[in-house]
């Protein structure tokens, strides 16, 4: 399988083996101090991490004089650039959540825990926190030594610096989260004048404490014991999922240096240097196969490739591969895998719904409620009167004047027909009465359609809604 190692390669293996002694598997009883090294997947991880910069800087984006993306909970409005979404349209949010949940399933089925490995806030914040730890306290070996050392001025200084920076990031995280729900600029002003609402204070405090504890201390234990997504995602992976995998056919039996052992068995490519364990942020050994602790961040691929380069063997001993691929079996193409097809269809349907919703949001929306007590009233001239409550939802930025009209039973008359101001961003109710002469009522219940149209508006809008006109039993 492999050629005879050259002397320089043997020297490299010696170095690695010397280091290997100190790497062992995470049993949950000690802090994982993972080694950091560069590589292709580390670069991709940084790209994933940097997406979270949006959390910190997104709220400061302005659009038409207000925050571009703002969850205005007190006013029950969601601003997304030009679009204002009121609670009446929140079914689109349900579709969006459906889309994201199914996307998570589809991606996991196809390529494992991409979310966990590259995008999850727990992974990302832990990565940043351990980077800070390394900057203050040094390499994993130095950190372990420092943890064991008695407290002195040097240790105190390092710890103080680390925790201060951690806490600052945690506070900034809390404030940034709240900034999506209230005007970001005003938030900072109010923050320094101690004039935030109690809801804002509590949210900032909660996010600060949770960030500090979860990213600083809990770390991979969150993925192991707390996070429900981790378990759901684990069940979605099967033999066709392409995930970071150790090629045990090629690697085993592991050999520390010899080409073959005493039995004359051919040695594998794995030099048992434990670098894959060293870099693992959850402290597992990928060579034991797929396991719940693996967040599939692919950092072990970088480590192993580096080692393979050093010892002069081909890269890819640990690589993105399915279990089928490992056995040399072909995986069916993506479009023939039922769960990928089904999840894609659901995502497509959800997107279609959102697209329909966004394109059909009326600027002015009309709802009509027919009075129930009484259903109709007999008038002195023998005509029948029905009472309606019209609810006009105005999503425009300004108040508009609207005119109400109705079509339905012959000769109907709207008795209360004043011009009405529909206030912006809310529902304006108006009571309206419709009269129809008895002789025009041919059946007990007839359809009636109410129309509203804006008057003197820069952007003319109209809307209509069907209701019923009810008369006496015949």
């Amino acid at each position, binding site marked *: 399988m492999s050629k005879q190692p050259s002397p320089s390669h043997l020297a490299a293996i010696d170095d690695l083996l010397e280091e290997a002694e100190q790497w062992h598997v995470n049993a949950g009883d000690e802090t994982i101090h993972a080694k950091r090294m560069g590589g292709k997947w580390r670069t991709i991880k940084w790209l994933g991490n940097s997406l979270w910069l949006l959390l910190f800087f997104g709220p400061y984006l302005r659009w038409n004089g207000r925050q571009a993306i703002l969850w205005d909970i007190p006013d029950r409005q969601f601003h997304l650039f030009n679009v204002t979404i009121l609670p009446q349209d929140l079914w689109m949010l349900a579709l969006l959540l459906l889309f994201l949940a199914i996307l998570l399933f589809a991606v996991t089925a196809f390529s494992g825990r991409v979310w966990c490995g590259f995008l999850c806030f727990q992974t990302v914040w832990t990565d940043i926190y351990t980077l800070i730890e390394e900057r203050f306290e040094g390499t994993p070996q130095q950190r372990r030594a420092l943890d064991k050392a008695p407290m002195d001025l040097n240790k105190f200084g390092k710890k103080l610096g680390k925790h201060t920076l951690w806490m600052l990031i945690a506070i900034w995280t809390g404030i940034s989260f709240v900034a999506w729900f209230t005007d970001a600029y005003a938030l900072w002003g109010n923050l320094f004048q101690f004039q935030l609402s109690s809801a804002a204070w509590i949210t900032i405090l909660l996010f600060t404490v949770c960030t500090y504890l979860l990213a600083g201390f809990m770390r991979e234990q969150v993925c192991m014991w707390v996070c429900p997504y981790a378990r759901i995602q684990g069940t979605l992976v099967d033999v066709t999922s392409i995930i970071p995998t150790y090629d045990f056919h090629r690697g085993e039996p592991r050999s520390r240096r010899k080409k073959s052992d005493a039995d004359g068995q051919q040695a594998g490519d794995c030099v048992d240097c434990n670098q894959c364990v060293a870099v693992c942020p959850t402290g597992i050994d990928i060579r034991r196969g797929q396991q719940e602790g693996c967040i599939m961040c692919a950092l072990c691929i970088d480590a192993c490739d580096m080692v393979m380069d050093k010892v002069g063997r081909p890269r890819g001993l640990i690589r993105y591969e399915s279990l089928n691929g490992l056995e040399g079996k072909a995986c069916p193409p993506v479009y023939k895998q039922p769960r990928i097809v089904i999840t894609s269809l659901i995502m497509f349907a959800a997107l279609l719904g959102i697209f329909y919703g966004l394109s059909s949001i009326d600027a002015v929306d009309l709802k009509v409620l027919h009075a*129930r007590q009484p259903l109709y009233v007999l008038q*002195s001239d023998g005509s029948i*009167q029905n009472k309606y409550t019209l609810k006009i939802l105005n999503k425009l930025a300004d108040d508009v004047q609207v005119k109400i009209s109705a079509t339905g039973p012959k000769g109907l008359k709207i008795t*209360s027909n004043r011009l009405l101001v529909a206030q912006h961003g809310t529902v304006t109710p108006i009571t309206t009465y419709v009269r129809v002469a008895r002789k025009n009522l041919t059946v007990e219940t007839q359809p009636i359609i109410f129309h509203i149209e804006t008057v003197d508006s820069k952007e003319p809008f109209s809307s209509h809604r069907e209701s019923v006109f009810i008369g006496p039993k015949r």
Partner: protein
Amino acid sequence: MADKNPFPGENNTGHIWDDNIRELANPIPRWWMLSWWASCAWVLIYVVIYPSLPIGDKPPPGLMGWTAIEEFKEGMAEVEAIRAKYEDQIKGMTAEQILADPGLSDYTVASVKVLYGDNCAACHGSGGQGAPGFPVIADDVWLYGGSTEKIEETIAKGRRGMMPAHNSKLSAEQIDTLANYVVGLSEGKDDPAGKALFMANACFACHGMTGTGNQAMGAVNLTDSVWRFAPGGIESAKRTIAHGVNFPSDPESREAIMPAFGDKLSANEIKKLAVYVYRLGQ
């Protein structure tokens, strides 16, 4: 017993059943004990800061001075404060002026609904649809006048309908003819025989020469489609003509009494109710 213990050194109580099931004397976990003591402390704190001891008619107040009734009153004051800006304006206005202001009129209708439900809905229905014997107030027919002043007067002073019984003066056939005449009036007919009886028995004195009624005394308009005593028709008309309304000596007489609310409700409340009633049907 101790020397017979087959499981020495594991801190069991010596209670052993079925050879190997035994009770251990392990200490309670520390987190559990901490929670227990914290809970005990919380009980003490609670008793001290909240009114908790049921002693005497007036239980001792807690350190915080909190009571449920005070919290209720504060909540009510909050609502009153929000309403104040409307209520202050309404106080100095007549019902007519309130109706002319769409905002105040809507506010009045929304806020006085409870008052209507408490005082009026029992007879006139939750939507003014009336009930047998009690007039519909969501239509455009007003016995005593439909202006807000008249409605206020009706609510404040009450009303008492009055129509004499005619069964001692008129024969059954005559009552039948008159009833048919009254039904005909609401359908636009004018039967001469009925008209003659109508004039001869001085019905016109209250109901008018053409039967259009008189709001000053609450005499109904006989020519419109709405019946005071529903369900309308020949039988209804015959009974009313024969036994009258609120006629003291006839036990079968119709009852038509609106109680006075002037003592029960303030003038301001009556004014707002008038606005509400006015807008039930227009």
